[in-house]
């Protein structure tokens, strides 16, 4: 029998948060984690966290578990990785299973904190047992923990934060996300996550659902269909998408089955994702010996899971008489978590918790006054500045903290929108790399005559190089112009800043770029002339369209340049940075389309 003051089940953000509080109060704490690695979902969360700067906002999830571990007092702490809790028996003994040694062990603990997280929901559709269908969390683990990409062409089901984030990470890993299917008319996830995906050209099918997966031995495609407000399939809207992987991100449900064995009170809460143990504001369940935190207590996000874990840790310590000023200790965390759950995105969880706590709920709490944070740029502005494209009240303030010139204000309410004081903005662009939503862009209208520099926070590899020709894409990921990489600023936090230049007329719309026409991509499809060949020729000095045409024969095929003339002009412009619009681009000649000699020999007279 292992004896301990506190047993924590689960080594994710909530469990680690709880351990910080109990160990720092001198309680002997044992943490069991079923996986060989600590961190729970953090270990695969390569994106930056939202929230308050003082609580890891702007830090990538994968680094947070180490930060949490640092705060745990090691002398009171022991961890058992690879151990899962399998039962809580009538005498209060907790059975744990050492999967490595195949051994059942018993733990006797004064207090138990359950931080077992969540499990992924699924949805029914035809052939949903075909190999190639995964939960989004599973895909994220495969990809970010084990370095295995499950497929090349992915269809994501669900536009919540997980669906959006995993889609983004799949693209970072080199996969092609063919689309995101979302039953609701809008994304459940943050707008900024959606914007990130959209500008990379991923189509999002709102008000659609998956009907069927098809394929011989594994997924080869999916059939999706539009639905009406009552979720009824609309005839004639079926669409086939080719993919080799279907990724389900249709929600999470609390994973607190182990607590049900103790006979504590459970309740069903749609806003919290399913059955949750009834608990108070300080995370104590209906039993004074069991505490809960994180997704097991209702689906939220990782930052609030840490806070809930800490609250559970304080509560457990308090119940063991190890907290002298409990009220003060609670208050800090309770206040912060309330703030995190303000705003349109967090309010659902707040409401669920209030119901649980029998706290009065006023529907006016569900409406938020949103400040207008759009700004007018004075015509004469020559200095660079930032464009903050954050219009949703998500709890977040790293931009405010990162600005050395106090040009950005969020204020004490971290769900308030960031306000830019243009006159204070120096265009230093420090905030770009800090924004977890990658929603801030740098604008420099004074880069070169007629050209605007756009600085984009960029997290894809390989990074471009200065001088590279690239394609400028708009917020929907559509290529709208050619661009040129002017600067590459590498950052330690791996959000790199790439400055591209575009012609002024595109400045308002370009928010992403694709690696330029390069490699063996065919540009002149009539004559099989590749982007590399064209770029090489331009490098060699064939920067005049007419010379390039005669050097490579581009545009001399049957289409006479219809398909590629503009692309090639863009490539020249992007590479040389010169205005070549006045240059001749060749003269289209008769016949407009190829005609046989016989057509001209059949009479016709003089």
């Amino acid at each position, binding site marked *: 029998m292992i004896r301990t003051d506190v047993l924590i089940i689960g080594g994710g953000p909530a469990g680690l948060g709880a351990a910080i509080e109990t160990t720092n109060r001198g309680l002997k704490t044992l943490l069991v984690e079923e996986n060989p690695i600590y961190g729970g979902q953090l270990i695969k969360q390569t994106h930056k966290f939202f929230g308050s700067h003082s609580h890891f906002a702007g830090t990538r999830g994968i680094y947070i578990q180490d930060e949490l571990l640092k705060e745990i007092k090691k002398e009171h702490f022991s961890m058992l990785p690879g151990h899962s809790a399998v039962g809580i028996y009538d005498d209060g003994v907790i059975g744990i299973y050492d999967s490595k040694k195949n051994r059942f062990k018993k733990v006797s603990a004064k207090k138990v904190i359950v931080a077992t997280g969540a499990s992924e929901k699924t949805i029914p559709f035809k052939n949903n047992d075909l190999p190639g269908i995964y939960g989004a969390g599973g895909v994220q683990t495969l990809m970010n923990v084990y370095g295995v990409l499950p497929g090349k062409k992915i269809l994501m089901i669900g536009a919540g934060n997980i669906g959006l984030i995993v889609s983004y990470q799949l693209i970072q890993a080199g996969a092609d996300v063919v689309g995101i299917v979302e039953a609701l008319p809008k994304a459940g996830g943050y707008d900024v996550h959606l914007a990130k995906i959209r500008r990379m050209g991923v189509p999002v099918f709102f008000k659609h659902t998956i009907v069927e997966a098809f394929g011989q031995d594994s997924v080869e495609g999916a059939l999706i269909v539009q639905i009406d407000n009552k979720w009824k399939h609309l005839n004639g809207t079926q669409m086939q998408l080719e993919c080799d992987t279907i990724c389900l991100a249709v929600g999470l449900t609390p994973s607190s089955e182990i607590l049900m064995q103790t006979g504590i009170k459970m309740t069903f809460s749609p806003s919290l994702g399913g059955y949750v143990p009834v608990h108070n504001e300080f995370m104590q369940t209906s039993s004074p010996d069991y505490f809960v935190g994180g997704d097991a207590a209702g689906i939220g996000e990782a930052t609030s899971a840490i806070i809930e874990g800490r609250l559970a840790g304080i509560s457990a310590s308090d119940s063991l008489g190890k907290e002298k000023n409990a009220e003060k200790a609670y208050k800090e965390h309770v206040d912060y978590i309330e703030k995190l759950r303000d705003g349109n995105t967090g309010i659902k969880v707040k409401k669920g918790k209030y119901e649980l706590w029998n706290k009065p709920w006023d529907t006016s709490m569900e409406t938020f006054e949103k400040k207008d944070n759009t700004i007018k740029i004075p015509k004469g502005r020559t200095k660079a500045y930032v464009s903050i494209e954050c219009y949703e009240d998500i709890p977040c303030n790293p931009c405010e903290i990162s600005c050395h010139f106090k040009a950005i204000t969020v204020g004490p309410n971290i769900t308030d929108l960031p306000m830019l004081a243009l006159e204070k903005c120096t265009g230093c662009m420090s905030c770009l790399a800090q924004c977890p939503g990658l929603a801030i862009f740098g604008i420099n209208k004074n880069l070169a005559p007629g050209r605007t520099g756009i600085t984009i926070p960029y997290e894809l590899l390989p990074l471009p190089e200065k001088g590279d020709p690239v394609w400028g894409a708009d917020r929907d990921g559509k290529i709208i112009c050619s661009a040129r990489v002017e600067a590459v600023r590498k950052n330690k936090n791996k959000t790199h800043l790439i400055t591209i230049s575009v012609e002024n007329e595109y400045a308002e719309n370009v928010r992403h770029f694709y690696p330029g026409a390069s490699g063996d991509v065919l540009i002149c499809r009539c004559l099989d002339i590749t982007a590399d060949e064209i770029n090489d020729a331009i490098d060699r000095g064939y920067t005049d369209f*007419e010379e390039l045409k005669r050097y490579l*024969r581009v545009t001399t095929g049957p289409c006479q340049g219809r398909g590629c003339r503009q692309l090639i002009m863009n490539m020249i412009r992007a590479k040389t940075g010169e205005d070549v619009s006045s240059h001749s681009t060749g003269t289209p000649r*008769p*016949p407009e389309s190829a*005609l046989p*000699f*016989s*057509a001209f*020999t059949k009479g016709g007279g003089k």
Partner: protein
Amino acid sequence: MKAAADVGIIGGGIIGSAIGYYLTKMGLKDIVLFEKDYLTSGCTGRCGGGIRQQWSTSDNVKLAKRSVELFEKYEDELDFDFEYIQQGYLILAFTDDEVRDFKKNVAMQKKHGLKVDLISPRQAKKIVPFLNTNDVLAATYCPTDGLANPFLTTFGYAERASEGGMTILRKTRVNSIERKGGSYRIRTDKGDCTVKYIVNAAGPWAQEAAKMIGYDIPVEPERHQILVTEPLERMVCPMVVDFYHGFYGSQEKRGGFVMGESDPSEPVSYKTSSHWKFVESISKKFTYLFPRFSNVKILRQWAGSYCVSPDAQPILGPISADDPNYFLAVGYSGHGFMLAPATGEAIAEWIVKGKPLTTDISHLTMERIEKGDYSQEYNVV
């Protein structure tokens, strides 16, 4: 812009580029080439690319033969693929007069060491199995004639000449030339440059460039139309020339058939537009000669200028005794591309070494024109 240079070349076509290349090869570095638009923007950029040695005058044969020697070395020497193929020229005779002339030409050409033969229609059919030889009386065939890509050839010369020190000024138009002591001041829209030698390689605009120092040279621009077909699988097909109907055509290395015709009614002009009469007329000629190809598709027709001299031979060398440092390389009459290597070499020798050494071009100067003492080149299409 460079304020001064040894040589100023006017014209960035095949002739100017070749001269620039041979000058730098002979060690001269201080050269500026003035091109009013882009390299090959004049006749070269519209040229069909034929390389023929079967001419009716000795001088043209000599120059063409020397050019082929240089073309054969080009790829190694310049390390530049210019799509050269030696698949021969087959010239068809349809009349007894032609047969008589061809016999004379072949004898003369053979004297210059050219491998050329007068052959029967049956032999011609063997060389080009799909050729209609029904009305052909005889033909001449030279297997070392051929075809290359005139644009690439120009770019190769220009690239190597730039590496050798030549400055190429594109989009720089020469507006006027002033004599300045023993030198010339070339005034352009981008600035002035004083040079010791001028080479007029301005193709169809040669006359204008000569007028800038007060000479009227007898060359005129004349439109010639041409077309290319869709690419076909490569077949060994020599350039087929038919002076009688006025036709030439051959398959280029990339598969397309390039063909043109001569139209005696074409007036003097800088026009390079396309006319429907051409496509109708050449379609008849082509399908007559190549009946099997009547459903091959025409991709594109275009036109370029010949810079025509009175005897259809180039005018080379100093413009006059008074201006011995103003050189002409003009009046090529539609065969400048194929004569470019030899004449480029000759002009460069003349400037660097004081006289042409490799090929004798003494009959091709302005003097013959002034004296009216020249022999007409008849083998022009």
